[in-house]
């Protein structure tokens, strides 16, 4: 089972965090700090896996973003690497050539997509089509509702 997934930039800024095990905020921060440091220190050609505490870390870099997952001893490293890739594909398809900014400004969408794909640290739906269909349906619900509110959306500044 995946214990958590972290997305962070080359500068070490955390962009998304998903925890599948209950931990205190303090512990989460500590883990994040430690892992970001460890992963950023590794050279490009090094292997994508490393032992960390009693977990296995699987990570991959896409452009300026690192995707980093912690899995348990019995879990399969390679399939986790492809979980990361599939998630990137989903983001890419949804945002259209996804970049770091999309994830910053639409962080809630990144979470929604992740929840459709992984749940409780396990793959829920591996078909790209099915995941995107679920998100699209939700977006449709949103659109019809936004129209109902008329001009409200334009008035706000903060």
């Amino acid at each position, binding site marked *: 089972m995946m214990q958590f997934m972290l997305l962070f930039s080359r500068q070490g800024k955390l962009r998304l965090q998903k925890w599948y095990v209950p931990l205190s905020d303090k512990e989460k921060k500590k883990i994040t700090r430690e892992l970001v440091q460890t992963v950023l220190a590794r050279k490009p050609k090094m*292997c994508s896996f490393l032992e960390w505490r009693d977990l296995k870390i699987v990570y991959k870099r896409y452009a300026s973003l690192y995707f980093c997952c912690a899995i348990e001893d019995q879990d399969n490293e390679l399939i986790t690497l492809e979980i990361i890739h*599939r998630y990137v594909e989903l983001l890419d398809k949804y945002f259209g050539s996804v970049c770091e900014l999309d994830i910053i400004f639409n962080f809630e969408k990144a979470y929604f997509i992740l*929840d459709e794909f992984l749940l409780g640290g396990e793959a829920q739906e591996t078909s790209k089509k*099915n995941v995107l269909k679920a998100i*699209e*349906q939700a977006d449709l619900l949103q659109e019809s509702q936004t129209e109902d*509110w008329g001009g409200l959306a334009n008035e706000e*500044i903060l």
Partner: protein
Amino acid sequence: MPAVSKGDGMRGLAVFISDIRNCKSKEAEIKRINKELANIRSKFKGDKALDGYSKKKYVCKLLFIFLLGHDIDFGHMEAVNLLSSNKYTEKQIGYLFISVLVNSNSDLIRLINNAIKNDLASRNPTFMNLALHCIANVGSREMAEAFAADVPRILVAGDTMDSVKQSAALCLLRLNRTSPDLVPMGEWTARVVHLLNDQHLGVVTAATSLITTLAQKNPDDFKTSVSLAVARLSRIVTSASTDLQDYTYYFVAAPWLSVKLLRLLQCYPPPEDAAIRGRLTECLETILNKAQEPPKSKKVQHSNAKNAVLFEAISLIIHHDSEPTLLVRACNQLGQFLQHRETNLRYLALESMCTLASSEFSHEAVKTHIETVINALKTERDVSVRQRAVDLLYAMCDRSNAKQIVAEMLSYLETADYSIREEIVLKVAILAEKYAVDYTWYVDTILNLIRIAGDYVSEEVWYRVIQIVINRDDVQGYAAKTVFEALQAPACHENLVKVGGYILGEFGNLIAGDPRSSPLVQFNLLHSKFHLCSVPTRALLLSAYIKFINLFPEVKGTIQEVLRSDSQLRNADVELQQRAVEYLRLSCVASTDILATVLEEMPPFPERESSILAKLKRKKGPGTVPDIEENRKERNANVNGGPNHTSATSNAKASPPSFVGDLLAPAPPPTNRPRPVSSASFLQNPLTPLPPQAYAIPLAASAGTFYQVAAPAAASSTDLLGLGSSTSLNSTPPAAAPPTAASLLVDVFSENSPPVSAPAHIAVPATAAPAADDNFSSITTKSFHVAESILADVQEPTDKFVCKNNGVLYENQLLQIGLKSEYRQNLGRMYVFFGNKTSTQFLNFASNVLNVHLKPVDPTVDGGAQLQQIINIECVSDFVEAPVLNIQFRYGGTLQNIAVKLPITLNKFFQPTEMMSQDFFQRWKQLSAPQQEVQKIFKAKHSMDTEVTKAKIIGFGVALLDGVDPNPSNFVGAGVIHTKTTQVGCLLRLEPNMQAQMYRLTLRTSRDTVSQRLCDLLSDQF
């Protein structure tokens, strides 16, 4: 899909995020965030009702601020409101907020659960999914309690949509992981297994994860899943790559599902049914065959997915460990990967081969790859890969290749990464010992280890080489010669000096015949290292010197001169000084016979698990060190089968260890006491009972003692000062000492009149001592260590006295110590009751508090009787350490010694303070400096019962204030700590989080040490 700019975009949120990104400094960012927080707070508090959209937007901003790493302590109610919105986006953001910021407020949990319940019942699949995702994300016990029955029903209901089934399956998995006791097994379990046959591969994928988790806990209940899993797997691996449509990933059919099915099968032994077994073998063969086929795509995703399935199949083959052909094929496949250009594959191949090496069918096949693995050790650029190579070499090592592997590991050690050196050292040491046919090779290897990586050679490693040399006479001469030569090096590691000192001290005589290593040469060589070594090593060398005096009478004069020098006799280190004084004295007064007995060669060590292996297991965690049980037995036979020392001498030396412990135990702590001198006089003047005053324990003034304790005997309790008067409570050092170490020493000694026997007794604990580090100090009086260990063993009266004043402090089969205490302001009085549980009289009964004079109690306690002692206490300043009560008495013929920490804690000096809400918050704000507040968040150790918690807080000494905290489930208290010099006001707040079974405790006092101490004390109570 240009979804981003759809009408749902929250412009205010985007503006805020841009602002944050444009902040030039951390300070600017914090300023911007605080402004935003103030804005949101005022919006939420304003009387104008916010519309759903604004609520959503602000909640989303709070979420963003939280994800930036800031704490969010409001907005939960608004998020909960969003849950019951009938607008999807609002609901969705509400759920996201709840999932990320699990809330501690139990009232809210009820509201959240209500909203979830409504959504689950809505029959709208999108809403149901949101609710299920929320349960899976939060996964708390409260949610498990509320939904553990609903979720399985949704999962197996005939009319549930596929996507809802998927969410329900994984939701149930999460609840089962966090609260297995709350998820009832039932008739749904059988129907869950049949989801493996579902049409929808997404449902099968989710269900397989659930079934695997359940099967790990209850394999019998899910046995039927084996045949279904095999059937499903078989259909996948034989399908054409396009059959599964969107579940095919880069030309690999359903890789995630395949991996999960293979993983599920690893919960079970090979199928008994021949047909199923045959079908599974076919599947595994097909997977292995596919690895040899040319790739259908050059993309790394294709090869990763394909190999993910392959590695999982190999794991299953290794798990079954029953098909030799499959095992050998797996090994060959991994062999190919060992030279693959993908680093990832080389890493995984090394990792997987480690497990293959332990199978008898494939061990030999793994060994054929030794050269490749050694090469990996030398050439891999990534340390994590080299680490795997070391692991594999360790796993594939046996008698046939041990010399090669150990040599390679040793040479790698010279350049190895610092992070893995210690582990390699341990592994080399274990292998060298395990496969040593010839112990000279073993000794050489360990000395090499110390030479190459001395800093990483832990104590266990050098203890072990000494144990082995002591236990095997055939290697002793060689060991002495080798260490002698190794010590010639101008710079040698301190660990080598330790081994050298020990071995020459024991076996230097075996090489003394050679004029090049005559006794004097040996001594000079060792002593040339002396001044560069740390204190423990010097202590060990001093013991080697006294052993030399016994082995070689001709160097006695030289050594005595060294011992007599001021740098030894007056060494600032008390242990060194003591050894020098005692050894010198011993060498002067003892006859050759006595010396020979006292300083006799160490008896063989009892065989036990290698301390190194234990250390490696600790380092790597259990289960990760390949089991070498079998081989260990073999080695044990080697060591023990060798010619042993006659056991007669060691038997003769054996005497009841407790005697020695008792003799020396009451020695005061190692600080500020004149013990070395007293020990010396003990040797000098064995027959003269020394006046007890000579041993008077230094009194109170020592740093860190903030107590002044006076304890008149019970008989004189009428003379006791009232609690209110403090004048004479500040007791001053009295002249008369209670029966302490001194009188006991004298006592015991007078029973063993012949003076010559004394040193022999002292020698006993050393030879009988089990720990390797002390084995050498065969003559050192052990009092130093014993005193320390007794102190370390002081009985902690648990934490039960923190919130109450009466109870049983200590109990063993002889004695019960009861306690009653009362406190007022900075004064306290403690009544200690000693109950004799036996029918025999206790003699020489004494009870005192270290560093403090107490009037002796009645020295006899009749069987079944009780003795009372009163201790008056004054708190002078705030403190952490409590005083220790030492009790000694003689029961039957044996001296008993008990040390108990008195449960005097800072909170005892609390006076509760009642105050109104307004006052409370005013003072709370006054104490807002960061060092005045201490906060701790911790898991509940006991059930979180409100009444019990209240009682504990009141017992702690503060007033429990009702109606201060707006949240009625929180506890607020106030009190004043009284010490002699000052008063410290203290405010506390305890917030239980039932859902997470956690507490948050916040304390504010005007003094940081007090805040910290009180927080530590109180947080242990819940």
